């Protein structure tokens, strides 16, 4: 029997800190729970304590649609996928583009640190109390956050200057 998320228990945990479960559902491959930004740490801690110890993925979707107003709700959704045995559960949270910040869950799942760096790199999401928030897939001088929908795929980057050899260890400044 595959493990399943106990909705009632999660809702109870959130209620005890005056928070709510904003939505839930099931898609092929996982159950998902949508929480408010305030509840991100509470819910993550609950999952970690409830035995969802397998860290799987941390990603984000930019839901912007051309022609929509910039204030469209639910524009930016971060999704954390964790597992217990064969089951997978996703914790989702909506962020506004003007405020792309979240507390880091690297203390709960060590693997989250690199995935949070990738979210910072690709979308510009800043994680508070992250041990080392810097770009991971792109080089440090890269300008912009490419996976955002307002980053045009063909955008050019500024050329870099090549420094003296002493910078070989650290890379170009």
């Amino acid at each position: 029997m595959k493990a399943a998320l106990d909705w009632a228990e999660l809702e109870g945990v959130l209620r005890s800190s005056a928070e709510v479960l904003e939505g839930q559902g099931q898609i092929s491959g996982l159950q998902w729970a949508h929480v408010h930004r305030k509840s991100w740490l509470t819910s993550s801690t609950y999952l970690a304590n409830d035995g969802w110890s397998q860290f799987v993925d941390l990603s984000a979707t930019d839901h912007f649609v051309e022609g929509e107003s910039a204030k469209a709700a639910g524009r930016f959704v971060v999704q954390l996928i964790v597992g217990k045995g064969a089951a997978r559960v996703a914790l989702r949270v909506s962020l506004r583009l003007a405020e792309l910040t979240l507390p880091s869950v690297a203390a709960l799942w060590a693997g989250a640190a690199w995935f949070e760096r990738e979210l910072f790199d690709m979308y510009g999401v800043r994680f508070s109390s992250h041990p080392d928030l810097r770009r991971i897939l792109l080089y440090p001088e890269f300008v912009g956050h490419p996976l955002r929908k307002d980053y045009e795929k063909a955008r050019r980057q500024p050329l870099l200057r090549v420094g003296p050899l002493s910078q070989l260890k650290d890379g170009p400044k």
Partner: protein
Amino acid sequence: MRSLAATVDGVSVCLPAPATVLDACRAAGAAVVALCDHPSLRPAPSCNTCQVIVNGMLIRACAEPLRPGAAINTVGSAAVSARRQSLAKVSLGHPVACSTCHQSGGCELQAGLAASAPVVVEKNTVTRRSLATHSKTLGPTIALHKELCVGCTRCTRFVAEVLHRPILSLHASHGRIANLQIDEAADFNVPYALALTELCPVGVFEHKEDRTGTIPLWSQRSAPSVCAGCATGCPVWLHGNGQGVKRVSSRGGAHYLCNDGYQFFDERGLLRLAVPFTANAVASWDRALAAAAALLAPAMNAGSLAVVFSAQSPTLDLAALSAFAVERAAVAHVYSNLHPDGDATPPLMSTNKNPNAASLIALAPKSRPITSLVDDIGQGKVTAVLCVGVESVTPETHPALFEALGGLTALVVASSFEDALTRQAMVSLPLATVEETTGSFVNGEGVAQSFAPLHSPAGDALAGWDLMNHLSRLLGIEIGFASLNDARVWLKRHHPALCPTQGGA
């Protein structure tokens, strides 16, 4: 306004009244085509390709009014097979020619067949695999492909109901295949004839200038825009692949455009100004702006600078120019160029050929016609002129003006196209066009409508507000138009009536 809530295959939709079941299906994204239905026409209903199930009954969605709380089912087997049968009937006798047909990719029959596939037609007698190579032409712009006709009657109803010129009719021939009859005496150069190319679901009427057939669908993109041909400002969709506008179609509104609207974004035989020029030599932006500032600064300080606004410019460009000239630099000599009135045919086309006259009047209230420049230059009151976005001013149309401009020591022109005015200028700066920037126009009825870019500006062209921000900074004035957001904020603060309510500026 009353709104109607309904569900389509379990998906909730909410539409303003009055609406049809088909509107609800489209809002929910259901794959239902309606070949004989068109928003500009009353429902026929004749093709039966839009059948869905409501309250257990199979109905034609295009003609059925939407009642609140309706539960619409498009995926029930009765509906699916009814639509499949209607599509089979409609495609009987249709050439099997998708791979070479010009309408492929934008063909509603094709989309319907693919969504309902397989749509088997027994004993399809027509297996012709390519369209007739010598198609008849209607008027100068339309090629006719009668063999594609599926008998939907959109065109015959359109010419009768909207144009009130019954030049098309449909006759049954041999009892089965539709035969489109054209009144041979009709003049297909009528002002809305090109709307037939958008209306026909299968491409019987082909716009000869439509070049979308050369682009694979996966690299096509569309941008919501506004036609800048006249003060009506019909909302349009621009279609292309990042290298120019290949096709224009209507976007709501009347659901069709006038002939000029379909051709507005075509290359007009004018060369595009894509890089800055100083003294007829290509220059970098830095050098060109520095040269422009050097030319304009003495006149600005002496109070003999003239600025020309254009009613063809988007609101943000006019706003930046107004912030510089009217608000900050207090330029005394402000002029405006409006295109003269032209032909108009109702219901869409307006005699006023200026897309943004309302914004111009609001942002440069004390401007005088550009022809007043002649005297002012002659009397020595004006020694330097800055024109932004001025179009259609030529030595043939404004001979005295060109003579006067010829005597100037400082003429700076920002324009999208190379014309006599830019050739006359000491510094010419490239402007991005409507299909290359975000912006808005306020139309003749005072409605502000925004447009989005289809592709990035050609060459080194910049948006007018961006250009003005750089230029005024070099002239020692900070107007605060550093980004699109800053520009929108300025407009909202100073002229909220000119701001579009939906989307950007």
